[in-house]
Structure formats: structure tokens, C-alpha cells
């Protein structure tokens, strides 16, 4: 390889290395600020003022969903800590006991008053017939 080409190759490599390192440092500094939601354990470990909006995510605990009129209450679990949620409105079709959920709302006395309930699904896709196997 000719000298000037080698120089330019080194320049390009250096450029990508530096930009990569720079961005990685920024991401490392931002760290959990880029998280979309807290798990119940993370949320309960911190003192969150009741006027701050939070997003909590986890699994809907089996047997915890109760409906009264248009109010739906359930428990979010991350299999170590749980947090109770109440919500007025319509939940997405994929909202089910034992499946993923993210709620946006305010924390009051250890309970979340949700403004929005979103369903989360996992990366598995299969036909219904195979589910029982």
C-alpha cells in the first residue's frame, strides 16, 4: 500500500475510533437515564416525590387484576418486589396477567395512579397450536 493511502487509512481508522470512544463515554455517563422505565425494585429503592411522573415496568402478577366499573387495578412484579397500580380507562388488547406491562403515572403512598398503560410483548412468535407443547 502506498504511503499516502496508508496515512489516509490510519486517519479514517483513528476518526472512527475517536468518535466511537466519544459516543460510548457519553452513553456511559447517561447510563440509566436512557432507560425507558423503572422496575418496582428500582423505584422502591428511591424516594420519588408524589408530584413526579414515573414509568414502571414489569410483569402483571398472576391473579392480581381486578376490575370495578372502569377502574382496573393490578400488581406489577419484577419477581422480587411488587407495586400496586390503579388505572381508569381501556387497557391494550395484549394486557394480560403474566405478560409485560409499562405504566406511566404518579406514585402515591407506594401505589401508582396510572395515566397510561402500555402492553409489552416479548420476542417469541409462534402459532397458537404450538403454545401448549
Amino acid at each position: 500500500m502506498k504511503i499516502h493511502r496508508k496515512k489516509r487509512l490510519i486517519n479514517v481508522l483513528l476518526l472512527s475510533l475517536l468518535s466511537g470512544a466519544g459516543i460510548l463515554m457519553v452513553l456511559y455517563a447517561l447510563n440509566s437515564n436512557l432507560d425507558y422505565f423503572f422496575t418496582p425494585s428500582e423505584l422502591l429503592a428511591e424516594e420519588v416525590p408524589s408530584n413526579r411522573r414515573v414509568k414502571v415496568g414489569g410483569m402483571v402478577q398472576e391473579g392480581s387484576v381486578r376490575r370495578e366499573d372502569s377502574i382496573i387495578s393490578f400488581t406489577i412484579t419484577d419477581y422480587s418486589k411488587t407495586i400496586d397500580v390503579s388505572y381508569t380507562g381501556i387497557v391494550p388488547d395484549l394486557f394480560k396477567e403474566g405478560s409485560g406491562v409499562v405504566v406511566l403515572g404518579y406514585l402515591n403512598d407506594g401505589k401508582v395512579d396510572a395515566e397510561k398503560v402500555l402492553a409489552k410483548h416479548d420476542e417469541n412468535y409462534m402459532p397458537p397450536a404450538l403454545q401448549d407443547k
Partner: protein
Amino acid sequence: MLREILIIVIKKFIHQFASPKTYFYQVNRLYPWLLYISISIYISAIIWGLFFTPKDFVQGHSYRIIYFHVPASFVAQSLYAAMAISSAVFLIWRVKLAAYLARSIAPVGAMVTFIALVSGSIWGIPTWGTWWEWDARITSTLILFIMYLGLISLHNSFNNFDKADKLFSYLAIIGFVQIPIIKKSVDWWSSLHQPASITISDKPSIDPSMLYPLFMAMIGFAGLVACIVILSSKVQIYIREKNKNWVKDYV
């Protein structure tokens, strides 16, 4: 001996193909084949995926938008990688054709990223219950879209093509760091978007009956996008080499 002959042959091939004229005529010959094969693969994959695959055990029929969303997202990221490689080839070896290619990929990449964003939004409504959330995967893909647009407008803001190509290429290479971030965004941070179903290390978590048409759709879509890149690169050759005799003759 054999090795030296091989190197000479490869060098000759690269030198010839790197001339815009040879590229232009070769690509013209290839184009109809690529177009018709890709269209037939893509259409059969879509028909297979929409009508002849079982529905999903959680999402029901709404999962079928995967046959549009996954190919678009995959190609959107691959195009950026192709653009960055092209840019590096231009910067190191000063191959003009590589600069034309990088510049011609940018608008196609923006379009495909837009398709990925829109199809993802449409998919989000019946499944997540929202069409837009600022989670890491969605936001980083939006940034990719803006990066494509930024590169295009940067290039357009120069009268001097040589300067424009150099700056464009440097910036495209710097921006490549975004691709692994998009890829890893669902693993590094908690997000609404689920982790990858198809990975290099593990068995895909999609049932084979749904996976084969998906692979087919990805191949067909990639071929179609390659056709658009070819058209777009021909436009770049027309613009940059408009004073060359062979272009005048061709037109």
C-alpha cells in the same frame, strides 16, 4: 505465481469497475434481472406471510406487519453500513465512484428508515397501545433518519463536489457508531421494544413457519432497495459526469 496472477486479475477488475462508465453499463445490464427477481421474491414472501402463515399466539393477526417492518429496519441499518464503507473507500483510495455511491445511498436510506418508523408505529397501536414512545430503540432509529437527512443537506450545501464528498464521507464514518447503538439499544436499556428475535448466537425465537417468509421478504426487499440505489447512483453519475463525452452520447 498463482497468487500474483490472482492479485493482478482482482486489481484489474476493481480498476475497471471503479470507472463510472464501466459501472454504468454493467449495472444497466444487471438491473432488469435484479428488479424482476426481487419483485417476485418480495411479492411471494408478502403473500406467503399475510395469507399462508398461522397467526401469533399473543398478537394474533397484527404480528403480520413484521413482514414489512423487519425488512425495512434491517435494510435501513445495512444501507448506513454500506454508505460508511463506501465513504471509507473514497477517503482512502479516492475512488470517485465510491463517493457517488455513498451520496446516492443517503436518500434511499432516509426513505427506508422512514418506512421502518411508520410500519413500527402502525404495529405499536394494536400491540403496545401507543404509536410513539421515546424509548431507546425508537428514538435511536429516529436519529438515524435525521442523520441521513443531515448528510444529504450537508452535501447539497456545497457548490464544490470534492469538498462536499470529503465532508460527507468523514461525517458518514463518524455516524456509523449509531448502528451498533440501535442494534444494542434493546439490551443496554429497558425499552418498550422487545429484544431481537433473530440473533447470530441463538436459535431464532420465531417459529420456522413464520420465519421462512420473513427471510424471503428480507431478501426481496433488500433486492428492491438495491435497484433503487442503482437508479439513484445513475442520477449521481449524470450530475457529476455530465460533461464527459460518453454521458453525452448515452443521453
